[in-house]
Structures are given as structure tokens and as C-alpha cells.
């Protein structure tokens, strides 16, 4: 069994080369090998959503995906969300505006999930936002502000 495999990962439009054990998840590859620590490790079991990033434009849990599965795909993380000049993405700005966090640990996952939720069109009502954001837990309980931020960002994008 080869101890490592070589992967070329396209993260936020840039190619990264890494040698990882086959069992390494996308989350661990991002954090420990590419040093992109914006994507957070919460439960590491697919239950909290802190590790949410996008693969080929769809939100996924990077803790339940092997890095090898993401090879050849377009991976997007929180680090790639703001404009190059530093202007925040509208969802990031809405989270700031609505104070949609307390400790902030779940926030990158919340924001990546919200960006996808808005793109999917699942923001027709607060109930729909809650349903389609239910995969992202916030132990501080900032849910009301998170829903408000997603609602405002969704309205602004229409």
C-alpha cells in the first residue's frame, strides 16, 4: 500500500500540489497541508456544518469527503470569497451587519452554506432559510441573526 498519493487540488482558482495519505479528508488537506485554516473542524462527523465549502459550486461537508474525491474539481473556501481588493462578499457583509455570530467558530461554514443557499433559491421565507440552513449548527445560538443576515443578502441579490 503506498503511504501517500499525490494530488493536484484547485482551491479558489489556484492549483495546489500535495502528497497525502489516501485517508486524508478534504478538510484536513485544506487545513494541514495547504494551510487554509478558514474552513473549520467542528464535529468531524458530518453533523455540524463548520467544514462547509463548495465543490463544483455545490456546498459539501469537507470532513466527509476524501481530498482525493475533490481532485479535478473546483474547490471554493471562505478564503476565496472576498474580492481581491478586500471588499467583503455581500453575505460576509450581511453577517457583520446583523452580528450573526458570537464566538465565530461556525461562521465560515455558515457563510459558505448561506452563499450556496441563496444561489439555490431556498430563501423564499424565514422558514425556508431555517430548513435549508439546518445543516449548520451554532452553539452560541445566533440563529435569529443568521436568518436575518441570509434574508437580507438574498433580497439584495434579487
Amino acid at each position: 500500500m503506498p503511504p501517500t498519493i499525490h494530488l493536484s487540488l484547485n482551491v479558489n482558482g489556484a492549483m495546489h500540489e500535495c502528497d497525502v495519505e489516501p485517508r486524508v479528508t478534504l478538510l484536513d488537506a485544506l487545513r494541514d497541508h495547504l494551510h487554509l485554516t478558514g474552513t473549520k473542524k467542528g464535529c468531524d462527523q458530518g453533523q455540524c456544518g463548520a467544514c462547509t465549502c463548495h465543490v463544483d459550486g455545490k456546498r459539501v461537508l469537507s470532513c466527509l469527503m476524501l481530498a482525493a474525491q475533490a481532485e479535478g474539481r473546483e474547490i471554493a473556501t471562505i478564503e476565496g470569497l472576498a474580492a481581491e481588493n478586500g471588499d467583503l462578499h455581500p453575505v460576509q457583509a450581511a453577517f457583520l451587519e446583523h452580528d450573526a455570530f458570537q464566538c465565530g467558530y461556525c461562521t465560515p461554514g455558515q457563510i459558505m452554506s448561506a452563499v450556496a443557499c441563496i444561489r439555490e433559491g431556498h430563501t423564499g421565507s424565514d422558514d425556508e432559510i431555517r430548513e435549508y440552513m439546518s445543516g449548520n449548527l451554532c452553539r452560541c445560538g445566533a440563529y435569529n441573526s443568521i436568518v436575518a443576515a441570509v434574508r437580507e443578502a438574498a433580497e439584495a441579490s434579487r
Partner: protein
Amino acid sequence: MKNFSYSRAQSIDDARDAARKAGVALLAGGTSLLDLAKSAVEAPDDVIDISRIPGLDAITVNDTGAEIGALTKMAAVADHPDIKARFPAIAQSLALSASAQLRNMASLGGNLMQRTRCTYFRDPANFAACNKRTPGSGCSAIGGVTRNHAILGTSEECIASYPGDLAVALTAFDAVVDLGSRKVAIDDFFLPYGAAPHLETVLQPGEIITAITIPATMAATNSIYLKVRDRQSYEFAAASAAVGLDFEEDGHTVRDIRVAIGGVASRPWRARAVEQALIGKTLDARAVERASRLAVEGAVTQGDNHYKVHLAPRTIARAILTLGGIA
């Protein structure tokens, strides 16, 4: 998680050859496999990624029914306009499962093959005894905390419940699991427990689900999936019901009714006694409630899960009454 080798199958024949060998695990979405590997329930030597095999992710809907490739993502089926229109219970069962992220990852074939959420099964570090994980080792759940365990189809060896939603809806509407070389009715696909609870489906080494087909029926078009759970979203069913209904020309006599339940049984559970009691009848609340109780005849409860004896019939009744426009 134990390390393993990783390779990608180029074709379904590649994957079948690989799957015949011991120690090989197939990976489609990977959400179940990685979760179980992290807790050491699964410890494959070789992981074969089948997700890039072409031609297994199409959705076709026509007047005879629907055919869905096994690698189709849950989200793609849940959001498909023709599935939503002609098989609403199927679309709802998927939309009410897992989270948006997981639905983008998990495949339909993998969804059928998901393992129980029994906490004893999933915790080998603390509970060595599990007949499903290690045949003959005993059952840690019996006599333990059993709130989420099955009341139907259990055995003295295992009381774990089947956690999925999609398979429950498929069972109500006589779906067929296509293995390429043979086709298996969904009701025959999942094995009853008995003495060998580690055997969950009829799949043999080297067999892979290639597609799921659902015949078009009036009952499937007029259908609902009702899921009752401890929290409103992102949670497994405490009880669920997939119900389909078709009336005679008079608009109130039941011509066809389908009932399958989840969250309460060792496998997706067709409640034929409920169906038989209501065919040819006019629906009213009392008749529906009485018939729904037939679903849990023969239930064996553990104490903690006794509430399901009441919850499951109420879930069925509410689904039927809602669908029939009576509730």
C-alpha cells in the same frame, strides 16, 4: 481511521471486479463510508471510488415510471421537477433527509445502503458486543438506551432500526433495485433480521446497484411523506409514513392505497394490513385511525421506544387524512 489504498473505477465492470475481493469498500458519495471508517466500524484495506463511472447519474421520467441512476445525488432527485410532480413522496423523503450539504454529496445507491444509527453499533470502542458488527458477539442495545430502536422486524439478536427515508417511500410504491445482471423488488432487497442481522440486503459480493426504477401509478402521484422527529430538521425519523392514495370515480371510495413506515422497523416496512383495511372503503377519521393501528401489530418494545407504538399509527393516520383532504 485506518489508512487504505485509493483508486478510481473506470467502469461498472471494474467496480464489480474490485467489489468481489475481501477488504474492499466502494465509495460513491462517501458520506456513510467515511463516517463509519472514522469510528472504526468500517476498516477497508482498499477504497474504490465509483463516483466517476459515466452514465449512472441520469433521471428519466415518462408515462411508465421513473428511472434514476444509482450515482444521482439526493439533491438532484429531490429538486427534479418531474419527480416532484409525479412522485411527490419520493421527492419529499429526500428533501426531508440529512442536510443540504449531505444531499449534494450522497448518492441514491449509497442512500439505500446506509447503516443503522444504533449508537451501540457505531461505537465499537465502548461496546464490543454487536451482532450486526461482529456476528455472535451479542447485543449491547437490548437492556440499554433504546429510544431510537426498532419495534418491528427485530430479533433477539438485534433491535437496530433502518434509518433511511427514501427506501421507505420506494417501498410504498413498489420500486425495483436494478443490479445490472438482475432486478430486485425493493421489498425483497432488504432482509428481515432473524439470526443474522449483519446481513442487511440481498447484495452479493461483486454486485452494485446501478439504478432504481419506480412504476408510475396514480397512488404514487397522489402521495406524501410525513416525517416526525425530535427536532424539526436535520434529524432521523422517530416515525415516518409514505402514503399514496387513489380514489374510484366517485371520488371517495379508496381504489388503491399504499402505506410504508420508517423509523420504527429493522428495514423499510410496508404496512399491508393498513392498506387492506382501507381498500374499498370511504375514508373517515375514525376508520383511518383504527386501520392505522394495524401497522404495529406484533410490535416488540424495549421500554424507551414504546412511544413508537402510538406515534407510528398517528403518523400514518395524519398522512392519510392530509392526503385525503380530511385533516
